[in-house]
């Protein structure tokens, strides 16, 4: 029997606001434990939560980018559960009235466009971080209260590959809307998977399992592929899939049982009594849409259609926001779009990989790169020399012009100077003209070699060749 895999994804994303969702303590990462907290984060009695404007703004930005309907009356609910990562005993979240509904992302999978429907986006707060030891756990409340958005798809995803493509695109959107650093390995973006299988053609859903603890997009794909196979094996051997929560074990490359459905908690959701419904200013919501930064899919389209960049390269450029932003700035200074792209994806990326750095950590600026490209275009230096200039530029705080000057790299592009040099060489080696007449290539190579030797490689090679052949022809005639 052939089965179809049915997948829905829940993504949590930490917002990079300055302060927490409901309290004015600082949002930071990697600070000393329990130093970024106040009474509200610790769930002390007598405190009241007050909603952060930027938290709402960032959520709206993502809603717009995902083409969602926005509920301008913001309401919160309490999700009650008793666990040590939650000092209040409940999490403030949006259950009944999420801020965003009905969105989508179109992704390309194996050359086909797949429409992934998004059911909802809601705002909530993060929990405290627990470190588990053999017999006890330690709690750091710095993370408690950091703004989160949760983005939930409908069960419209059909393969691990498609799930990975969706997550890649969603991650780019989170980066381009500038709301999060969206790092799965660091937990600022987290993904839970709901997965079931059913016979092809069936319109009923099978029994689903949930997979948690996925720390990279590639692990999401692997976990889905494994879990679909596992469910298929169960069904084919006459057993049934049990509704349960599993986690992906990277070492085993398998999903393993975490808890069965019997342990499911009743969260007793009810409206958060400490936050009155908040009516957002319609003009404000609309202005957030108007000021939405350019989205990755729009950039890809623009790079291909306006700047004539190859589709594959356009996708690579856009996949790294920093590089794409750098490209945008550089092409304000030079129109050599494809050359800028080639430099960024070639030498610059190679350098970044080798040094394990990001662009902002290097000495390269859009001005320097644009100038370097212009120098090559204007034949002040050769392409080969440009690579040397680039290397120096990355190591020393100098402009391309300074480096060219210091290295004495300026090409000799004066026709008169070059012509005089040829004539002297040809006069001294008349056999070269004879060689040329006899159709021997080495004549040209020999003279060019001599010119380069005399100029220490600074003669413009293209011009040198052209002029020489002209001169030889003249002498043969």
């Amino acid at each position, binding site marked *: 029997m052939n089965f179809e895999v049915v997948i829905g994804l829940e993504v949590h994303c930490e917002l990079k*606001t*300055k*302060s927490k969702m409901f*309290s*004015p*303590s*600082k*949002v930071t990462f990697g600070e*000393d*434990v*329990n*130093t*970024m*907290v*106040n*009474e509200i984060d*610790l769930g002390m009695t007598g405190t009241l939560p*007050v*909603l*952060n*404007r*930027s*938290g*709402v703004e960032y959520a709206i930005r993502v809603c717009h980018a995902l083409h969602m309907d926005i509920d301008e*009356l913001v309401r919160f609910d309490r999700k009650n559960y008793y*666990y*040590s*990562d939650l000092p209040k005993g409940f999490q403030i979240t949006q259950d009944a009235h999420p801020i965003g509904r009905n969105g989508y992302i179109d992704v390309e999978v194996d050359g086909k466009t797949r429409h992934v429907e998004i059911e909802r986006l809601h705002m909530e707060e993060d929990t405290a971080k627990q*470190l*588990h*030891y*053999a*017999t*006890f*756990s*330690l*709690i*750091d*409340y710095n993370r408690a209260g950091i703004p989160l958005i949760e983005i939930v798809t409908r069960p419209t995803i059909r393969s691990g590959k498609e799930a990975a493509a969706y997550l890649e695109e969603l991650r780019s959107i989170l980066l381009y809307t500038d709301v999060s650093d969206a790092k799965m390995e660091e937990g600022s973006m987290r993904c839970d998977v709901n997965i079931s299988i059913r016979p092809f053609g069936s319109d009923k859903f099978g029994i689903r399992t949930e997979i948690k603890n996925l720390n990279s997009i590639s692990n999401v794909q692997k976990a889905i592929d494994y879990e679909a196979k596992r469910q298929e094996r169960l069904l084919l051997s006459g057993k049934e899939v049990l509704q349960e929560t599993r986690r992906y074990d990277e070492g085993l490359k398998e999903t393993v049982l975490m808890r069965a459905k019997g342990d499911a908690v009743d969260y007793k959701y*009810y*409206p958060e*009594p400490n936050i*009155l*419904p*908040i*009516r*957002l*200013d319609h003009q404000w919501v609309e202005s957030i849409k108007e000021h939405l930064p350019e989205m990755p899919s729009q950039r890809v389209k623009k790079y291909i259609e306006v700047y004539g960049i190859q589709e594959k390269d356009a996708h690579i450029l856009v996949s790294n926001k920093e590089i794409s932003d750098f490209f945008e700035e550089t092409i304000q200074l030079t129109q050599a779009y494809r050359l800028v792209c080639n430099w960024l994806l070639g030498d610059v990326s190679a350098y970044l990989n080798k040094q394990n750095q990001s662009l902002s950590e290097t000495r390269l600026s859009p001005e320097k790169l644009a100038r370097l490209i212009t120098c090559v275009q204007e034949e002040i230096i050769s392409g080969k020399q440009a690579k040397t200039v680039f290397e120096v530029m990355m190591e020393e705080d100098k402009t391309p012009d300074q480096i060219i000057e210091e290295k004495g790299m300026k090409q000799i592009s004066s026709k008169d100077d070059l012509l005089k040099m040829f004539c002297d060489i040809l006069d001294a080696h008349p056999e070269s003209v004879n060689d040329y007449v006899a159709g021997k290539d080495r004549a040209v190579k020999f003279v060019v070699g001599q010119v380069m030797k005399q100029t220490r490689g600074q003669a413009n090679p293209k011009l040198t060749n052209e002029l020489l052949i002209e001169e030889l022809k003249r002498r043969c005639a």
Partner: protein
Amino acid sequence: MDKETLLKKLGLKTMFRISDEEMPLLIQEYDIFMNHVQALESIDTTGVEPMTFPYDIETTFLREDEPTHMISREEALKNAKDVTHHQIRVPKVVG
């Protein structure tokens, strides 16, 4: 379950210690409270929307995103029974 057992169980869950002397008074108050609830239950609420807030109002205030108030780590951990490496130490219950 008799009232005394029920109240003891609730006390345990909500971390209130109830003494034997307090019990008769609590049982009395419990009866008053339950009568009150029964009186409320007799009201016909068919077609009435539940409400969360005493007034049907909307607000517009949003807090500016500035970190303006934090407390020191010493203060934050003062109430904790068990602190290890500046963190609150709790029994391990992996959820």
